């Protein structure tokens, strides 16, 4: 399978480990990625101007013939939203005025979670790929708000299950995580820090209470809010959370047998060692059992 890869700006800044693990996982799955040449912002920085944000997204889409894969939920959502807007003839005409290559037909756009799910689903023998099932690990599936929006895409916008299913496929157990759809408050963090902090701590507490060993994130902004922010939240609320936040690609990479380094696991703010240790311990047990 060959896909056009749309990295998005965060891949080259705060979300480097997401890009590293995305590339590693795709390689392991035999998915060939071709980075879109001279890509630009997905449009998220200009959502207040429909034409500009749509044109930005469209410019990326017209630069390739291949189906497009994005790993950031915001980029993914923007690209899809733009395609919906572009169905309107008037919007399309205005956008095309600004583009050198015109936007004609619709594109296939997928999120990396779809790419992984599809590849595993199509595998002849799953065990050949999932060489290190995450048995014994409990993962809190965190969707955030944009993966499933605008509606009519990947999964139900209110009660999706694609991440739980992937967690199970990889051998781990999804926890009953009530706040899995709550917004990570990234967009309001600056102007409404107080409200954002309140929400974030609720999300983290809820994830911890659900019994999770770690949280799975699908979006670099969510990751930033829950991971990089975690020490600050701990200090602010005077409580220990210490919950590793893994990108979906990092989790998948572990199950595919990739090493911590290949997945950029040491780059996460909250140490991911507890996850690795638990995985090793479980493996040890499994191996012992096999020996007996």
């Amino acid at each position, binding site marked *: 399978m060959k896909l056009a890869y749309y990295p998005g700006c965060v891949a080259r800044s705060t979300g480097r480990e997401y890009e590293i693990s995305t590339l590693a996982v795709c390689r392991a799955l035999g998915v060939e990625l071709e980075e879109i040449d001279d890509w630009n912002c997905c449009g998220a920085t200009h959502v207040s101007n429909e034409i500009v944000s749509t044109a930005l997204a469209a410019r990326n889409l017209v630069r390739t013939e291949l189906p497009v894969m994005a790993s950031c939920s915001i980029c993914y959502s923007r690209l899809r939203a733009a395609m919906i807007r572009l169905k309107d003839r008037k919007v399309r005409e205005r956008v095309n005025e600004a583009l050198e290559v015109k936007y004609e037909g619709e594109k296939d756009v997928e999120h990396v979670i779809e790419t992984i799910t599809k590849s595993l689903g199509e595998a002849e023998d799953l065990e050949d790929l999932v060489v290190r099932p995450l048995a014994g690990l409990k993962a809190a599936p965190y969707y955030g708000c944009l993966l499933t929006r605008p*509606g009519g895409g990947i999964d139900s916008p*209110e*009660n999706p299950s694609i991440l739980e299913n992937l967690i199970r496929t990889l051998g781990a157990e999804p926890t009953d995580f009530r706040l899995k759809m709550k917004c990570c408050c990234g967009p309001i963090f600056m102007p409404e820090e107080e409200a954002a902090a309140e929400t974030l701590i609720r999300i983290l507490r809820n994830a911890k209470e659900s019994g999770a060993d770690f949280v799975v994130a699908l979006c670099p902004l969510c990751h930033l809010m829950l991971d990089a922010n975690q020490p600050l939240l701990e200090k602010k609320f005077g409580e220990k959370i210490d919950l590793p936040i893994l990108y979906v690609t990092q989790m998948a990479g572990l199950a595919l047998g990739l090493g911590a380094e290949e997945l950029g696991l040491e780059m996460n703010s909250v140490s991911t060692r507890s996850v690795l240790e638990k995985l090793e311990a479980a493996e040890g047990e499994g191996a012992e059992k096999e020996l007996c």
Partner: protein
Amino acid sequence: MRIGVYVCHCGLNIAGVLEPSSLTEFAKTLPDVEVARDLQFTCSDTGQETIKEDIVEHKLDSVVVAACSPRLHEPTFRRVISEAGLNPFMLEMANIREQCSWVHMDEPPQAQEKAKDLIRMAVAKAALLNPLQGETMPVSRGVLIVGGGVAGIQAALDLADSGLHVYLVERKPTIGGYMALLTDVFPTNDCSICVLAPKMTDVYNHPLITLMTYAEILNIEGSVGRFTVSGVKKARFVDEKLCKGCINECAGVCPVEVPDEYEFGLGKRKAIYMPIPQSVPLIACVDPEACIGCGLCSEACPVDAVKYDQRQEEFRFDVGAIIVATGWQSFDPARKEEYGYGRFRDVITGLQVERLLNAAGPTGGEVVRPSTGEVAKSVAFLQCVGSRDETVGNQYCSRVCCMYALKNAPLIKEKYPDAEVSIHYIDLRAGGEGYEEFYMRAQRLGVNFIRGRVSEVEKVDGHLRVNYEDTLLGGFRSKPYDLVVLSAGLEANKEADVIGNLLGLSKRPDRFFEIAHPKMRPVEAHIDGVFIAGCASGPKEIQVSIAQGEAAAAKSMRLLLRGELTLDPVVAMVDTEKCIGCKLCVETCPSKAISVDKTALVDEAACKGCGTCAAACPVDAIDMRLFSDEQILAQVRAATAVKGQYPFIVGFLCNWCSYAGADLAGTSRIQYPTNMRAIRVMCAGRVDPAFVIEALKGGADGVLISGCRLGECHYSKGNYQAYQRVQVLRGVLEKVGINPGRVKIVWCAASEGEILAKEVRTFVRELKEMGPVGTELRVLGVPEPPGGDR
């Protein structure tokens, strides 16, 4: 042909701008005109008498009245000439008031020229008029009512009491519809089934009502006055004549339990069951899906009524009219996933709470949490679930859910005074007699009203929480409740789709059946002889559903009581010699009035005379009895005979909207240029490209076609067809080198006189820019078309 022409002064209304005496002199010069006079007020008794005397004295064959709009006085003058022995259709009017003197008050000389043209056009048509006879046709005195909800029941009783025979066909094993399942009903809170059951029994006992329950209509043929209906009565596996309705004997021994659809899944029923205790007919029914064939019920039945080998029965009957009262279905609240219906047991629907409150319901009238069976101490009603919500494709308000929440919240509060009951709403809509008072009563009883659409229902530690923004107090809130009731909206009933397709009913964007006019014809369908009542045409409460049942019954009586139908002779006719059986007309006809068996056949009872088929026919095999090709072409030629003005426009205005709009411009004295000569057609869809070409050939610089606004066509889609034809024609014109802008199609409602005037002004300007017709050919060096004599 001997024609009399009467030019009206209308006091100074016409004579103030035009010169009737010289118009009269002009009329005398026209071919076939035997006599012409100007009259002070043609519609007055003296005017009428003059015409009548002339008809006798001069042996006139047809009459032209040049006066006001035919939309005003055509019926008057038709009556006048028929009193003098002429066929009423031997009349043509020239509209020199609304569409001439009143709109060209500042340009008398040009108006006078236009009036002459209008008279010439009218005389040309009058010379080609034929006497038409509205045929009478015997009709069946039976009425089919589809759907035995409260609307259908009411219609059935009214019709049968008036002496017509009713066939009431209901899909379910009992009649009653949703009303039979509700608890007390607003606005007076009487027990629903107590007021409905007597009517249900009356239906059963009425000698003139044939009740067919558990029945499915499979085919409907024919048209107004003589529909043939056929279908099947499904097998109940119980002998209707033997069953005594005791039900306990058989259902008591039946070992199979399934969710009870009449309790909306809250209770259970057996495989042999009685839908509701008050079922009409009171006959048990075996559910073939659930039955395991153990035979226990058959053994238990004291009268041996259970018949496992019963077969479905076919039926077939004739009726003159059909009332569609197929009701509604509930919005599926599981589609609003954020509210957790189907995931959380204590989230239920408005219909389910009706059953809980019902003393005959699954809990004997206790409002309990389904998860625990304990009485709910706090209850939230969430409004507008699946209504006013574009995310689920329902823009409309369901109209009754505010009221039923305002009914059920107090019922709970009265029963359990300590319970906390809240209604989460966006706006509360309580429009109706006594409804606002009903709302205030709920407020007094202590129901909480919280404004703001609920964002989600979640389950925290085994307890439901409702999260919302309180838009009155401001701020986000979260409130725990024992029970959450979703006020799910009303949707168009999918089970009625078959009926809609068989009858060719159209649907609105909200998917409910469309009525013939959104205000003026509230219970008529687009198809003659078909009426729609109750929620089949949109959400409404019981009172209005009943009123519509009564109205549909009255309309059916008006149609059928005399036993015969006088058909409007203004219909299409087929020249079977020419017809090639291509079926284009069948697709075009909005009234499903044409069928093809080798050649086309017009059902004159169903034809409404729009003439779209005549314009569509590729071989001119269909023509109209009035507004015929010959007559319209004669009008076009008469219009372009002189062309005293530049640019010269021939207009085609549809009778219902644009012609009326032009009349309105007149009554409002909106002034516009005198350049257009308008021809009245029944529908913009009547305009055959041949008419347009004839006008251009005759030297008209432009042709304006005006129809009802899109979506508002009197015949539903004629204006779309006109639009398509114009597009094709413009393409052709462009190919031969004629500026396609010379043919223009516009939309104008009857209320839009100003728009019509504006369109004429704009078109005149555009045509001036284009230059006289043929200019473009001269540039190309093509020889000019004939008739371009300027």
